[in-house]
């Protein structure tokens, strides 16, 4: 798994639970170091190991933790640049949903060796969608539930999300759009301002 992914898990634990809990996770998982480097590639087992350990150390089910990770990535001030990159996907939440298919390609444009889970969005009706997510890390669908929930807030859309389970390494999420303009979303300026 790419260092960026592992580092995201590390930053999530540190920003949410404090650096001491992270140090504990790293120690219990016995990964031999306490900081993931963003630009290195690590073994997939290491990512699974650190997620399971974090779940045990923080007394939270792994999938819940992964959903929180998704929400964190889209809504924490420290990861604002990531939210912005995703907002480039479209002007509305529906456009954003349709941009998810190309998310792995967009990521590769920025970091050529970053491999994100394969995503496949299907629309059943104008308000009912399903997202299939294929990843070697179990629970990646839960991360996307967190991401979608936070992004819906960001766009001001009201959605219902449900994890429909996993089969052959593919996790499926059902997305029901209740209202696309439910609230005023967060502002998105094309030009990145420092303030």
């Amino acid at each position, binding site marked *: 798994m790419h260092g960026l992914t592992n580092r995201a898990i590390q930053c999530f634990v540190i920003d949410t639970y404090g650096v001491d809990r992270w140090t504990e996770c790293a120690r219990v998982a016995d990964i031999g170091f306490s900081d993931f480097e963003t630009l290195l590639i690590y073994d997939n087992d290491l990512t699974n190991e650190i997620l399971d350990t974090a779940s045990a150390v923080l007394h939270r089910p792994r999938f819940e933790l992964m959903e929180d990770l998704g929400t964190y990535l889209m809504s924490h001030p420290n990861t604002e640049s990531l939210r912005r990159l995703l907002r480039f996907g479209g002007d509305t939440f529906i456009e954003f949903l349709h941009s998810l298919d190309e998310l792995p390609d967009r990521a590769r444009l920025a970091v050529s060796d970053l491999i994100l889970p394969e995503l496949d969005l299907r629309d059943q009706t104008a308000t009912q969608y399903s997202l299939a997510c294929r990843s070697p890390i179990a629970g990646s669908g839960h991360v996307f539930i967190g991401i979608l929930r936070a992004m819906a807030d960001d766009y001001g859309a009201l959605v219902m999300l449900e994890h429909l389970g996993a089969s052959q390494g593919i996790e499926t999420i059902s997305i029901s759009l209740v209202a696309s303009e439910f609230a005023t979303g967060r502002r998105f300026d094309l*030009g990145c301002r420092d303030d």
Partner: protein
Amino acid sequence: MIWGAGMTDILSDRTGAEATPCDMAAIFDVLCPMHLVLNKTGHIIHVGPTLEKIRHKGDWLGKRFLEIFALKRPRSVNSAKELMGVAGSKLHLQLRDPPTTNLKGVLVPSCVDGQQIVNLSFGISAVEAVQVYDLTSTDFAPTDLTVEMLYLVEAKSAAMEASRKLNQRLQGAMIAAEEQAFTDTLTGLKNRRAFDVIIERHLETGSPFALMQIDLDFFKMVNDSHGHAAGDYVLQMVSRIMIAETRVTDTMARLGGDEFVILFPDLSDIAVLKRIGNRIISQLEYPILFQENVCRISASIGTVFKTSNRLATAKQLYEEADLALYASKRVGRARQTFYHEGLMPSSGA
């Protein structure tokens, strides 16, 4: 509207008699929201919707195109007629009013009598322009790659930031590793930190040893006249000579610059040390050849004995060896002095 009946006629002719007349300006507003229409005198008669956002003060309608935009390339276009001469070629333009944004453009004659269409783009200034003019992705045609470019710019800076942080951490780790190192990277000898540890260990056991401090003579001249590469080479040769002239149980270190030190465990025979010191000096005096350059150096030596019945600190021994060394320098270099009580610090050293 502005395009007049002529345009719709042409279009109708092309698409057949049944075709409904269409508003070309409206079509262009979607396809090229940054276009202008000029009349035959070079005055602006239509402004695309994105350009409408840009002209935040003053109306452009009815103004001369060249009054609003400065044509930077090709130069020497000053009239509507000359403007028609650059049709089809790439134009580098700049807004005359602040914030004097740079634009790229192309001008084509329209089918309507004497009118011209100028399509504009921010080009590379897009990053700045979206901020200055508060543009959103709907201000760009869906086929325009500007928004993708802006995405890439941000993604690249995020990736660069990650890379910069990694480099910073590596740099920090390298400095820390160097600080912890015990080896002088140039000569491969031990460094001062390592030597301090070794000398302390010998002091703890109370065993006798001799401490020889060696300072190169004329080394500065080598550096000054033949350069630092020559100086580095000479230091490497010096360390080889010292290794050759000593036993494996002796410890050598480069304390910095052209200062070396050797610890001889269990050696208290002044005659033996004299021989070793003299051999080192004469070996060092052989000219060293570095790329056509002949480097000549020598060495001054100061030695102190730490006998088993004497209590001394490393600092004391360093100071005494230093005193002896400066006595050697004082009496004309290229010699060795043994420390003895009554050796006075040199006033000139």
